[in-house]
């Protein structure tokens, strides 16, 4: 059996599976909070301080955290809408073309373009298009699959999937400054603040 850590680090060398980040020797600053409440309040402050390139990491979803972070509404619904309508149009035109133009056959005395018969397929392709749009749109916006991320350089960050609540602010944020940003997060009640290498 291959060593999983070794496998991960080998896979992480594949460029496509790495996040696209600007060059720089330092990824940013990582702050750990001990409770969801502390994280929530800190997010509001980081948002109000005007940071744009930052994220929050929690082991479970926290209701309202998107508002506390000032996230804009997701653009995924638009992708879903377009792909769902695209699926519907594809299904109607494919069936209509086959049944009425390419190979017209009389089936049980119905007209060639019998649209009611096309509706189930149209519905299914609309659902399929919408579902694929939702899943792969989410993958695209989240830059998934990403097998490596600079945040993994912090051993503490492993607790983001267990019992740790984190804020990371990236060094290419215009407002970022290694010293003042660390102090800001410290002042917001972080139990631990560290700089993370790129």
């Amino acid at each position: 059996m291959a060593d999983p850590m070794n496998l991960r680090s080998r896979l992480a060398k594949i460029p496509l599976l790495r996040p696209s980040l600007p060059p720089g020797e330092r990824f940013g600053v990582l702050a750990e909070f001990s409770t969801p409440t502390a994280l929530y309040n800190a997010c509001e402050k980081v948002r109000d301080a005007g940071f744009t390139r930052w994220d929050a990491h929690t082991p479970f979803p926290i209701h309202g955290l998107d508002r506390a972070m000032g996230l804009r509404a997701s653009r995924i619904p638009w992708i879903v809408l377009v792909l769902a309508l695209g699926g519907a149009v594809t299904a109607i035109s494919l069936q209509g073309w086959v049944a009425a133009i390419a190979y017209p056959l009389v089936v049980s005395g119905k007209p060639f373009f019998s649209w009611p018969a096309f509706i189930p397929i149209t519905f299914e392709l609309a659902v399929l298009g919408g579902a694929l749009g939702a899943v792969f749109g989410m993958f695209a916006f989240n830059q998934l699959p990403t097998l490596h991320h600079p945040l993994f350089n912090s051993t503490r960050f492993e607790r983001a999937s267990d019992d740790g609540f984190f804020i990371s602010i990236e060094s290419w944020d215009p407002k970022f400054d290694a010293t003042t940003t660390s102090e800001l997060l410290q002042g917001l009640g972080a139990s631990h603040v560290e700089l993370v290498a790129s």
Partner: protein
Amino acid sequence: MSDAADLPRTVSAASLRVESSPAWNRLPTVGSLMAAVGLLGSLAIGLGGNAAAQTQLWHSWLVAALFVLTIALGGMFFVLIHHATQAGWSVTVRRIAENAMAAIPFIALLFVPLLFVLSELFPWSRAAEVAHDPLLAHKAALLNTPFFVGRTVVYFLLWSAIAIWFNSLSRRQDDDGDQEITRRMRRASPPALIVFALTVTFASFDWLMSLDAHWYSTIFGVYFFAGCLVGIYAFMSLVAIGQRRAGLLPGVVTTEHVNLLGMLLFGFVAFWAYIGFSQYLLIWYANLPEETGFFAMRLAGSWRPITIGLVLGHFIVPFFFLMPRTIKRNSTALAVGAAWMLLMHALDLHWLVMPILHPEGFTPALVDVTTMIGAVGLFLAAFGRASRRQALVPVRDPRLTESLLFDNI
């Protein structure tokens, strides 16, 4: 945020009672007036006219009675399914549904006069017609007056019993805070849902399908049920928005709850279309005479634009209108959508009943409007009366906190 940091939320006890809003508190009076004027006016118009006017009266009366009945039954389903699934978010709006189903014993009064004029409505109750119609004669074991009246009485007794039992337990919990009551309601709701499903299906067969006893459609009960849910979600959205506008339940019924009611309305607009189209597709495909008559009649003459209008107005337009999140979070926009869906639901019932009376085409009548005013008035009076009997939210429900904190991520 789902954290204790936001608590306690301070709400004055008065804002949980309908008495603190003069407009909502007047509902029983206003409703009773509407009922008296509407129903007596309809009787005066219908019974004062010729035989055709009387037949028109009872058909219009049936549409209006079914309109309010479907909303009340939708309320019953809401209460039952949310107990059965231990829903937490819906606690602050559950009383709207409870108060709607509290109207069922009063709606039964609307069906009492119809029981005396069955021959005006149903071909199977006209002996001369049955004598010449082998199919009606074949169905006489089911479709005969004593059995039909007995079934209707049983439906209303069961529905009333469910409504009264759940409402009185819910009210008792307001006083004693006994959490065992929540468990009792949860245990009772699955069997009640089975009773609900069977009675609603058979009631729709009896009161709508047997208007044309030659027609077969096994999905019709589900279609009727879809109408019930569109009705109740539209009604609950309107009431929740209206009560918030009147300053009731500040911070108790929030945009989050209204948004979710809008989502359910949106979902069941699509469900109605799904069921309606499923019914159409199979009948269209098989093309059997005893099934196609239903649609042939509704796609002829001036019924055709009504049928197409129903597809557009009951499904396509509201489907795209209600789809964006911003619409469902904007109380004015959602209120417009909900009011429109109630109108469309009334048109749907009209479309089910009236082509049998007027196969020549869409024939609106004055009694359509007056019976609707009367039935809606009676329903609102009963709803308003129930709203005054206790707080507008189940104040000691163990899941109230969860509901107060509810947030659509």
